[in-house]
């Protein structure tokens, strides 16, 4: 085998357009991180390490044939449920919430696993009952979604449970849940909103939503984030203040600027033009995801690919919306840009699946 052939085989299962989009976002992320970290190489280098690990995992998943992927659905989901129940019973209370489980060797946060596990399980379930889908099947799928959500919401981790709810809802939607049922549930949800507000949300969660309407209420705490981030975005103007020149960033006005609020750094320094380019990059990745979805060969892969793509779009929207003050501050990182290893890994595992779905379809097409 020549070197060329070897290389060809190594990258055979990597989808080029998707890889290009991801690569552009990752490089942008490193550049912004360097600025956000006050021109220090400390975090960018660690982030580079996170990326390498996550990319290697993506490559592995991309090379995994689809029937293997399907076979992992039930074990991953069951493992996730067992761990979530374990958290509820024996979880370690840290930071006032019960989210972590100490397994002796390592401490894990099972809700992170369920970001992939839930849509995977639901897609698997629909594939199994593809031929005879009735309302009952949708109901069971919804239960598969709501059980982990309930466990995660009571940890309490509202941000994660809403995002998993979204990814599971996308599977239901793509699987053809009737508009009438969706409408009914939506109306019922609206009607029960006052009840949820009063009895099911924690004080701090209500506080965060209230703050959205009047950030100055809490100028020292959460409102401070929103006020300063909005100033950063707005003062960026059309062309931005220039790389490494953001005053909000470099005079320490911006909180959490390497993680959840990194978009404020970006838009302060690169302005509206930069934001348009960034939205372009995200749109490119999302467009490619939809293409892969449309071309997917089986019911399972269609649902999975669609859910991954839509969830990715949701993450990006929620984070940017939160930074520019149209959504409440829920701890969601900007996908592929924010500093942090866990979300990087989860996202790239998803993209690995997309790539596997795209590159293995010829082999299973019937």
């Amino acid at each position, binding site marked *: 085998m020549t070197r060329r052939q070897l290389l060809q085989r190594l990258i055979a299962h990597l989808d080029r357009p998707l890889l290009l989009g991801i690569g552009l976002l990752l490089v942008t992320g490193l550049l912004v991180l360097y600025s956000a970290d006050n021109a220090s190489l400390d975090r960018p280098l660690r982030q580079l390490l996170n990326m390498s690990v996550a990319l290697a995992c993506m490559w592995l998943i991309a090379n995994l044939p689809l029937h293997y992927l399907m076979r992992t659905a039930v074990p991953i989901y069951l493992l996730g449920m067992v761990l979530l129940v374990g958290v509820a019973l024996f979880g370690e209370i840290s930071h006032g919430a019960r989210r972590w489980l100490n397994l002796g060797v390592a401490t894990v946060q099972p809700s992170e696993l369920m970001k992939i596990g839930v849509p995977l399980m639901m897609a698997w379930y629909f594939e199994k009952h593809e031929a005879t889908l009735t309302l009952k099947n949708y109901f069971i799928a919804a239960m598969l979604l709501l059980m982990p959500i309930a466990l995660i919401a009571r940890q309490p981790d509202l941000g994660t449970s809403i995002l998993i709810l979204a990814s599971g809802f996308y599977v239901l939607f793509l699987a053809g849940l009737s508009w009438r049922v969706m409408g009914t549930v939506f109306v019922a949800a609206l009607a029960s909103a006052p009840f949820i507000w009063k009895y099911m949300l924690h004080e701090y969660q209500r506080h965060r939503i209230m703050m959205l309407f009047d950030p100055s209420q809490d100028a020292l705490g959460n409102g401070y984030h929103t006020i300063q981030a909005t100033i950063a975005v707005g003062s960026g103007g059309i062309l931005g203040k220039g790389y490494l020149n953001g005053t909000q960033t470099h005079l320490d006005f911006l909180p959490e600027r390497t993680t959840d609020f990194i978009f404020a750094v970006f838009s302060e320094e690169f302005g509206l033009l930069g934001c348009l380019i960034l939205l372009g990059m995200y749109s490119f990745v999302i467009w490619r995801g939809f293409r892969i979805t449309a071309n997917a060969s089986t019911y399972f892969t269609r649902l999975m690919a*669609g859910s991954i793509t839509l969830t990715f779009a949701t993450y990006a929207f929620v984070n940017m919306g939160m930074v520019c003050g149209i959504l409440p501050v829920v701890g969601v990182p900007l996908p592929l840009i924010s500093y942090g290893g866990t979300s990087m890994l989860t996202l790239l595992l998803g993209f690995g699946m997309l790539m596997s779905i795209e590159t293995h379809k010829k082999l299973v097409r019937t």
Partner: protein
Amino acid sequence: MNKYAEFKNHQREIFHFQLRLVVSIGFVLLLLAILLLRFFYLQAFRHNYYQTLAESNRIAIVPIVPNRGLILDRNGVVLARNYSGYTLEINQNKTTDMEATINELSTLVEITSKDRRRFKKLLAESHDFDTLMIRNRLTDEEVARFAAQQYRFPAVEIKARLFRDYPFGEKTAHLVGYIGRINEADAAQLEANDLAANYRGSDYIGKTGLEQSYESDLHGTTGIEQVEVDAGGRPVRMLSHTAPVSGNTLVLSIDSKLQEIAEQSFGNYRGALVAIDPNNGEVLAFVSKPGYDPNPFIDGIDSQSWDELNNSPDVPLNNRALRGQYPPGSTIKPFMALAGLKFRTRKPEQTISDPGVFSLPGSSRQYRDWKAGGHGSVNMFKAIQMSCDTYFYGLATELGIDNIFDYLSRFGFGNKTGIDLEGESSGLLPSQDWKMKRFQQIWYPGDTVSVGIGQGYSLVTPTQLAFATATLANDGMAYKPHLVKEVRSSFGEQKRLIASEPLNDLHIEKAGLDLVKKAMVAVTQPGGTAVYASLGTPYHIAGKTGTAQVVAMKQGEKYDEKKVDERLRDHAWFIAFAPAEEPRIALVVLAENGGHGGGTAAPIARKVLDYYLLGKIPKPLQEVTEKEGSEHD
């Protein structure tokens, strides 16, 4: 189903899916449009507004840290206070060569190796702190010397700050505790409890003792100052000001003089003393010996001093009164006697004959009485007075472990008392269930025998035993022990009283109670085990001595205090309340490796009782007080 239908179905399904996909794309486009509109609005339409905000930014929101609340004893004596002083702080971001800066600084002001070690530790732990303290408590001279040379040190600044100080030092260390720098774990905890906003600007948080358990009272509410700053970050003018609210003052039920006397009465003994007012649960003295000086902990103790404290064989950092677990020994006997009366196992006048050993029927194992040859003919009164083991071996066997567990747990044994300090131990009151869970073994009759004299598996904390003694002294009416009497605002007005409602009433029969109390008075009278405790007192002391074994003796072997290594000697207990007829104070003394309770623990108790009931100050202390007095003359 024929092939045609299946095929058609498949096509329809694909069509439906494509439809949904188109809706999804529409949804994403909608989200994109929302973001685009928002970006245009902020960055193009409102750009000038935000530009101005950012330019003149600069409105800095500066937190004003509230003064931490004071801690006073019941008479208003200060146990924790704040004083203002100067610190020297280095801005991490403005200096490139930290080592050189510090070396140059040390030519102006003294920087000890302790200061350097502490700074290194702070540096390693710091994240967002932009400035770190290198020296605290500068003298006026040092401040002047540095101020003259300040231009040479752009990264170093002098700050005026409030410092926490514990005037009683190690005497109240285990009680008051200390504050320390907020570390990452504390910060995460604050974040989770949504308190991070109120702690902006705060560097300290309660770490142990009352400083920890009453943190929410002591901290206060952070004020906000909106100031305009120039591009360099220096304040130009103030825009708005919300004053901070100082933390609340804690008024303890502790009597600091009593605490001091108790502490000093221990001499070189390690141990603990807890004194409670049985009528309301107020803790009057709370001592764990040895103590440690909490003051160095405030700004991060350097690792060398920490190691010395942490590795000392005396474990000064261990709060023995709260967390130390010891076998109760013979101090359990009055409670066992009450159990015997409650379950009608023994009548008060019933006598047994004590040959000096006890054996279960059909067993050759011998349980020895502490007195070789035994006490002869013994009834309940005498059994308590002379601490007869054989009587209680038999009583425990007749009661059975289930009844013992049932009755003793009513006095709080085996449970936390709920005193207002964190980290209390719960002791151990053994039961059949417990043994099965712990050792997967059934309960043997032999296990019950040693429980009867407070040995075997039984463990108590000094706080727990004090609570039980106070309950007994107050005729079975239990009050939760508490160190804080009331919380006041910084202006002195009362905010709340710490509960002194009774927890529960054990409904002990009066006759039995009288008998046990009289027997406990007899303990401190001629013929009892602690005669010297009440020699010449104008009031009656009800007491009980106890010895907790550190090493178990083999069958037939005899314990000889002189032959045993000092640290393996028995622990001495003494529980007491006085005046016996109308108790105003109940206390527990534990002297580690003190041998017999009557010899070492009881005299400590006597000094405390004499001061509390008669105002008498013991000799060695008297000399100190007189000396202090003459200095003022």
